[in-house]
């Protein structure tokens, strides 16, 4: 993605770290996975929903804010490419948007922060666990196809936390 100047996108304003005009925090896998596991263990399905929804809302508004600054990025293809680049630049992993359209699609991940973190702290899971990524994908899909938050459901069909070869996300329009 040649259009993005990451050095200026990720900047400091005093003690704050700013990405695309919005404050960010750097957190490591210990905190992200601790929060994930604690919320899931405590609230069950409701906790999973919360993890997905929080990631979706925030990735929606964050990606929208970024796109406003790059008006030259107009095509769906380049927006999807930008989404993958941002995910990678934020240290979240690799997302490959395959066969994606306005009604949904299939997205593959070969590696991710949350998978690496989960496996190093807790080992193999018995159920798919990339709730953050599900929400993140739903958020950016909403922005790319000009739908409000909550327009897409993202199901994880295969998960590397279960020691599968890749994570496979199936996106559907609600």
């Amino acid at each position, binding site marked *: 993605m040649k259009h993005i100047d*990451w*050095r200026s996108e*990720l900047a*400091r304003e*005093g*003690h*704050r*770290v700013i*990405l695309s005009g*919005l*404050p*960010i*925090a*750097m*957190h*490591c*896998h*210990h*905190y*992200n996975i*601790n*929060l994930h596991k*604690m*919320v899931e263990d*405590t*609230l069950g399905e*409701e*906790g999973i929903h*919360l*993890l997905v929804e*929080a*990631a979706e*809302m*925030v990735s929606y*508004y*964050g990606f929208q804010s970024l796109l406003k600054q790059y008006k030259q990025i107009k095509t769906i293809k380049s927006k999807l490419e930008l989404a993958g680049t941002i*995910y*990678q*630049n*934020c*240290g*979240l*992993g*690799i997302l490959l948007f395959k066969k994606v359209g306005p009604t949904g699609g299939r997205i593959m991940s*070969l*590696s*991710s*922060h949350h998978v*690496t*973190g989960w496996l190093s702290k807790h080992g193999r899971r018995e159920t798919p666990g990339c709730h953050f990524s599900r929400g993140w994908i739903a958020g950016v899909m909403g922005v790319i196809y000009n739908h409000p938050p909550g327009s897409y459901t993202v199901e994880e069909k295969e998960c590397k936390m279960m020691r599968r070869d890749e994570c496979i996300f199936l996106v559907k329009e609600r």
Partner: protein
Amino acid sequence: MTIDGSKIIHAVMEGSRIRDAKGIIPLFGVYLSLFFVQYYNKLSFEFEKKMGKTREKEAEKLLIEAAQECGYATFQGIRNSREWEELVVPMIGNREDQIFSFAAVAVAFGWGDLEVKELIPRENLTIRVSDSYEATGYLELHGHSDSGKCYMLRGVTGAFMDLLYGEDYPDGCFNFMAEEPFCRAKGDLYCEFIARRSSDQRIP
């Protein structure tokens, strides 16, 4: 020697721009991610809300514990990293300088403008933060609170003391516990965290 926080900030900003072929940022011995603070605020405060009034204390305890365990493991990784050895160790004159270095790393990570106000070795640590993203987020999402809301910073303050004066790693987590007597979310001018040795190993 005084800890030069600007050197640590520079190293973190440069290091956070380097990710490996898998899109992972390995820095200071941990895997870093960069994400909007609203995510952490929404997750923490919605979790607390879903737990309800009857489980309010339990929610607070869980959020602090998640952060303290994280801080304990994270800063243990950080102080054993190559980056720490090369950059921070030359600035460290005594054991207590580690706390000032930990605080500088936290500032570099965008957690707030942490300032060590008092450190009495083996007894207590006071950290003041005038711009905690948790307090800001709580005020934006829910308005004023009647209790402190900076659970992450509260846990991390305890972890700093655990690492210096607790039992040897990995047995010292929760040897210290922090309180937040002042918090902007409840109308104070700043947030303040005081860690003291805990009588129990866990939050009562």
